[in-house]
Structure formats: C-alpha cells, structure tokens
C-alpha cells in the first residue's frame, strides 16, 4: 500500500505529464519549433504539421531538383523524418487521451508516451541525417541548408517526454490483478468531443492569431521578422494617409447606405406576411409562398446571371421598354454605375423578401384566434384587426430581427457586391467586406496588413454592436437575443 504522500506526488506528476503531452502535441503546430526546416527554401511559417503532406516539402525544391542542386534522397529523408516525428506526436496525443483513465490506463499511457518519445527521437535522428545530406549536396549555397532551432528543441522535448514517462511509470502503483482498463464517463465524453473542439479551435480561434499581421510590414510570400515589425504604423497610416482615408469614407458611405436601406425597409417582410395572410385561398397562398422563397436558394452568381440576361442590351427589360416606347434605344443597365445603392437593395429584396417573411407567417399562425374574434365582436374591421392584433403579435419577432441587422450594419457580406461590381460602378458598390477583399487579396498591389487591420476594427465594432443590441434587448424586452 503506497503512502498517502507519495500518492499525492504521483497525482501531481500525472497532471504535469498530461499537460506536457498536450503541449508536445501543440508544438507540432508552431513553425518556430519545426525540426524539418532544414533548408531556407522551406517556408519559415511552415510547421511540422504543415509539412506532413509531401507536396508541402517537395514543391519548394522543384527548381533545385531540376538544376541538380539537391538529390532526391535528401528530400525523401526529410519527409521520412517529418513523418516519424509526426507519428511520435500522434502517439503523444494518444498517450494524453489514455492518461485520463484509471491506474491501468495510466500505465498504458506511460508506455505510449515512452514509445512516442523514442519515435520522436528517431525522427529527429533521421532529420539530422537529412541535414547532413543537404549540407553535402552538390550546390549547398543555393539550398541554404540550416540546422533549425526546432531540431534541438524537438530533441529536448522528446527527451524530456521520455524522462517524464519513465517517472510516471515508476511512481504508478501496480494495478490489482483484476483491474480493467477504465475511463470515467466524463473523460470519455470529453475525448469524444475533443476532435470537434480541435476543428473549432483550428478554424475559428487560430485565425485570431493572424491579427498580428496588422503589426508588420508584411507582403505575401515574405516572413514576419523583427525587422518588419512596425507596431501601430498601419493604424496611424489609416487615419493620416489622405488617399486611404478618402477610400474608407467612400466605402463606409456605401456600407451605411446599403445597410441603412435594409434597416429602413426592415418592416417589409412583416408587411408581406400580414398581407399574404389576408389572401383567402389557401392554394394560392401556398403557391405564392413557395415561389417567392425560391430566389433565396439561388446563389448571387446565379442572380447575376439572371440580371445579365434581363438587363443587358439584348435583354428583356430593354425589349419591353423600347417596345412600349418608354425609351428610344436600349442601354446596358448592368454596366452603368447609377443608383447602385437602390439597385443593390432591390436585388437583395427580390432575393430575400419571401424568405424573410416566413418567420412572420409562422408568427401570425401562432396568434390566438380568440383575439381576432374578440376584435370582431368589438366591431374592428379588417385593417383595425391587422393593426391592433396582428402587428402587436409580431413586434417581438420584428424587434429581434431589427437588433440583429443593426449589429450587422458593417457586414453586408461580399458575394452580392463582388458579382455585380465592374469598372464603372466600383466606387459606388464597394462595401466594407468587398473593400477588404479587394485590398487584401484581389488588387494588383495588395496590402495585407492594412486589410487585416481594417478587418480587426470591423470585428471589434461588430462585436460591440452585438453586445449593445443584446443589452438593449434585455433592457426593453427583458430577454436576450444571443
């Protein structure tokens, strides 16, 4: 029977062991700790995880292979070392999962961790060999062979893992003969959901780390280094550079105009639903509802192709207008830059009106019919009933929708504006989201840090607006919306 004190010590050791294994797993995602960056040709921003697919290594050496600067074995060796290190990392992750179990499981975990450490050490050894192959390549100065800081770091990390695994193994009590592998339900459930949490972290939280690009003088393909760190220079640039400031003012004007039109007419879906419910024939009601929701399921590219068919010079609209003598000669409505705000709002309404009305249609059907009967008894006519019974029954839903659209005032999305934009209407159609896309990804002279910074500011303002809207909702309706 082990003493109480030693048991507590082993408990603390297990905790350290678990945390260490988790950290070891995460290290595979940190570019600085990448042991496989044996040549300057491999990006400094690639982590061990990134290099696990062969093309990620091989694609850097196409030219070098062609010119005979390096030979295939060096690359194969690098890839092999990466794979073995990756296997070690995977084993460490498995050891972490198993370490949540009972004593028997933890002994297995120590074994796994030992295996992970040995595998990892073997991997670093292979990478060391590959380093030798790079250094001895026919034309080393072209390859910029290097011993990355990740290589000794990995060696140390795996070595420490080996020591820890041994310590855990030695301090764990021998399991009773009949003890079975067991994992408590709370850990079992946690491990089941862990892969999905990892996906969320990878695609929703990790991008936040990318906010640091706003602090560097970064260009695509280059690296974040201490020399390119510029602090808040882009922030000052945003406000002091006249051209940028003019752009921002123009873009914000577009954004607020389009969102503002949407807000000003946010009652439209409700009116649509109320008047639709006044139609007596159920069949025609259903037909209207079915057909008017179709545009919602059509992408903006398809909407644009519809617009292209209808509004171009050969299209239906010109035919109808010329035919009825309203205009003399056909024009191409899509390429003109006039009334862009109104046009965009109209397309948005065409696409979304029927769909947004559904929530109100359902709201109407859940209003107590007795209210209508009582109103009839009191002598209310059709319009009085609409105004005094139906509308009050829907205001709660309307309020939620309104607050949500207020908090989304900066986010119009870019699909619609991207597909409709062209050289003639660009200045009037560019909303914030599209501006960020054009600035950071699409224009000939991209400015990634500035686009990142504007995105950061947008995100912060949006979150603030959402909390504000939520607070307003709590205050007015005593119910939160998020």
């Amino acid at each position: 029977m082990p003493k109480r004190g030693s048991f507590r010590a082993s408990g603390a050791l297990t905790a350290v062991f678990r945390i260490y294994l988790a950290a070891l797993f995460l290290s595979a995602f940190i570019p600085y700790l990448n042991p496989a960056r044996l040549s300057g040709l491999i990006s400094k921003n690639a982590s061990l995880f990134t290099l696990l697919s062969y093309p990620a290594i091989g694609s850097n050496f196409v030219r070098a292979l062609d010119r005979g600067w390096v030979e295939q074995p060096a690359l194969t060796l690098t890839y092999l070392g990466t794979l073995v290190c990756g296997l070690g990392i995977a084993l460490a992750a498995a050891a972490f999962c198993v370490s949540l179990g009972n004593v028997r499981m933890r002994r297995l975990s120590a074994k796994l961790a030992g295996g992970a450490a040995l595998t990892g050490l073997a991997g670093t050894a292979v990478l060391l060999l590959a380093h030798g192959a790079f250094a001895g390549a026919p034309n080393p100065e072209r390859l910029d062979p290097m011993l990355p800081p990740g290589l000794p770091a990995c060696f140390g990390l795996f070595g420490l893992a080996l020591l820890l695994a041994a310590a855990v193994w030695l301090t764990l009590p021998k399991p009773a003969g009949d003890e079975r592998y067991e994992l408590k339900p709370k850990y079992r459930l946690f491990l089941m959901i862990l892969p999905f949490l990892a996906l969320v972290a990878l695609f929703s939280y990790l991008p936040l780390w990318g906010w640091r690009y706003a602090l560097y003088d970064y260009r695509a393909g280059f690296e974040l280094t201490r020399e390119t760190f510029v602090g808040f220079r882009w922030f000052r640039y945003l406000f002091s550079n006249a051209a940028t400031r003019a752009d921002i003012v123009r873009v914000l004007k577009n954004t607020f105009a389009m969102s503002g039109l949407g807000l000003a007419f946010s009652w439209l879906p409700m009116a649509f639903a109320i008047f639709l419910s006044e139609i007596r024939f159920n069949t025609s009601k259903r037909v209207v509802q079915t057909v008017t929701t179709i545009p919602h399921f059509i992408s903006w590219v398809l909407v644009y192709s519809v617009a292209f068919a209808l509004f171009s010079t050969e299209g239906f609209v010109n035919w109808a207008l010329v035919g009825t003598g309203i205009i003399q000669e056909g024009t191409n409505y899509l390429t003109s830059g006039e009334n862009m705000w109104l046009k965009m709002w109209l397309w948005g309404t065409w696409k979304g009106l029927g769909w947004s009305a559904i929530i109100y249609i359902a709201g109407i059907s859940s209003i107590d019919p007795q209210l209508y009967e009582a109103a009839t008894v009191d002598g209310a006519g059709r319009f009085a009933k609409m105004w005094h019974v139906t509308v009050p029954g829907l205001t709660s839903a309307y309020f939620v929708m309104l607050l949500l659209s207020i908090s989304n005032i900066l986010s119009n999305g870019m699909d619609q504006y991207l597909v409709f934009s062209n050289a003639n209407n660009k200045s009037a159609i560019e909303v914030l989201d599209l501006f960020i896309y054009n600035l950071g990804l699409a224009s000939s002279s991209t400015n990634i840090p500035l686009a990142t910074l504007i995105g950061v500011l947008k995100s912060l303002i949006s979150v603030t607006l959402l909390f504000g809207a939520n607070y307003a909702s709590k205050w007015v309706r005593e119910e939160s919306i998020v």
Partner: protein
Amino acid sequence: MKKKGGVRQPPEDLLFTFFNGLFFAVFTLLCIFPIYYLFINTISDNRLVQAGLVNLYPRGVHLNNYRMLLNVSELFTSALVTAARTALGTLLMVLASAFTGYLVTQREMLARKFIYRFIIITMYFNAGLLPWFLNISMLGLTNNFWGYIIPAIVQPFNIILVKTYVESIPKELEESAFIDGAGYFTVFRRIMLPLCKPILATIAVFGAVGHWNSFIDSIILMGSQPRLYTLQHRLWIYLNQASNLSRLMESGGSLTEADLAAALNGRITSLTIAMVTIIPILLVYPFMQRYFQKGIMLGAVKG
C-alpha cells in the same frame, strides 16, 4: 353589428382584396419569370437570342447549347468537384452536427458548459477575411479539395439545432439503453440518429444548398488550381468574360467579327451554365420545401 362570415364584403374590402391579390400575383411572377426567361433563352435559336427577339416564349427550340456544354471539359471537372464537395461536405457536416449536438446534451461531460460556449461563441465573432485566409493557407488547405470540406464540418448553429432537438426527446429512452449496457456510441447510432432524422434532414438540405452555391471559397482559396474551381466559380468567370466583351462593344471599341461571335457565344454559354446550375435546386426544391421552412423556424429557437 356586422354579420360574421363575410358573406357580402363591403366595396372597399373588395378593392383591397383585388389589389392585394394583384400585388402578390405580380411579385410571384417577378420571382419566377427571370428563371423562365433564362430557360427560354438557352433553348431558342441563338441568332434570335442575339437579336433580343426571344422574350416571352421560346422560338426555334433546340438543345445544342446544352449539348455544347458537354464538350467543355473544364465544366465537367467543375461539376464533378461541386458534386463531390456537396455530397462529402454535407455528409460530414451532418454527422458531425449530430454527434456533437448529442454529446453536448450529456451532463456528465467534463466542462460541458464551457465546451458548449466555446463552440457557440464562434457564431458571433470572426477574425476577418485576411486572417482566415492566411490561416487556411498556413494549414495547407489552399489549392486543396479538403479546403472546401474541413473548415465547414463544425457549424455551431447546426449544433444548437441538434441539441435543442435531442433535449426534446424523452430522457428515458436513453437511460434504459444505458441500463441495458449500451455505450455512448451505441446510443447515438441506434437511438439518437434515427430519432433525429427530421432535424438532420433540415441540416442536410441547408448544407447541401450551401455547398452547391458557394463560390467565394473557390475564388479565394483555389486561385492557382483551376481543376478545383466550383461550377459557380466557372459561371462567374464566363459571365465576366461575356460582360467585359459586351462592355467593349458598347464603348465602341474596334471589334472584329470574331469578337462579336465570342461575345454572343459567351452570353449563351453563361446562361446555359446558369440554367444547369439552377436546375438541381429547382428539382429538389418542392420536396425539400417543408424542411426549408422548418429550418428558419428552428432558427428562431435560441441555443
């Protein structure tokens, strides 16, 4: 006091009914006519289409435009990519939503509340376009088919839907299964998956339409890999070419006969691709409509 039942309506009521009906008739027509117009333009004689003479009904019906698309190999590849991402992406998304949504209802889970919030809160913020792109590219998912699939697997909103649905199922079903010795996986597969079918169908329908329609991710992520462009991305490229040519024509630039032919061809090709892309949606739409409507109603339910 007025008589109930509306046997005879007062005249202003009749007027209202008339204009109300008229409004909805016109709006309904506005919603469906453009698609009809697109359709008749793709099956009519191309020369009449060019002259702008096909407006209300098809003239000189032929299917050559559709047959012609079969010869454009890049379109075939794009259709394949789109179909593959729709099928695989939807399948994985539905399974992940079902499983995660079920798991977060399990009270024994370690740090359940924290985990649930950790997932849900991501609906309300995003890091922005550039960090998102740089992240995906760092993970090696640009110019990679999996770039369509993996980032879209976990959808917080779907998890809320499944969670709410599972919570409405009587606890006893699950408990009796546990007493019979079933594990979490068994309960999920044998009990929850069949019982959650309605909500999973809703999620699947929305997911599939989303995957089928998406083109921004194709534009942003697949830049140097035209093999992986989705159908809608292709359509966008064709539309751009066609409208650029027609803009050139209007600005009175010197155009050869070949340019004019290309402009016409581009227009017809774009419209035909658009039609091909819309058709699947229109085909599934009537069957799926009840799920669509259920979907937005569930959207009103908070997590």
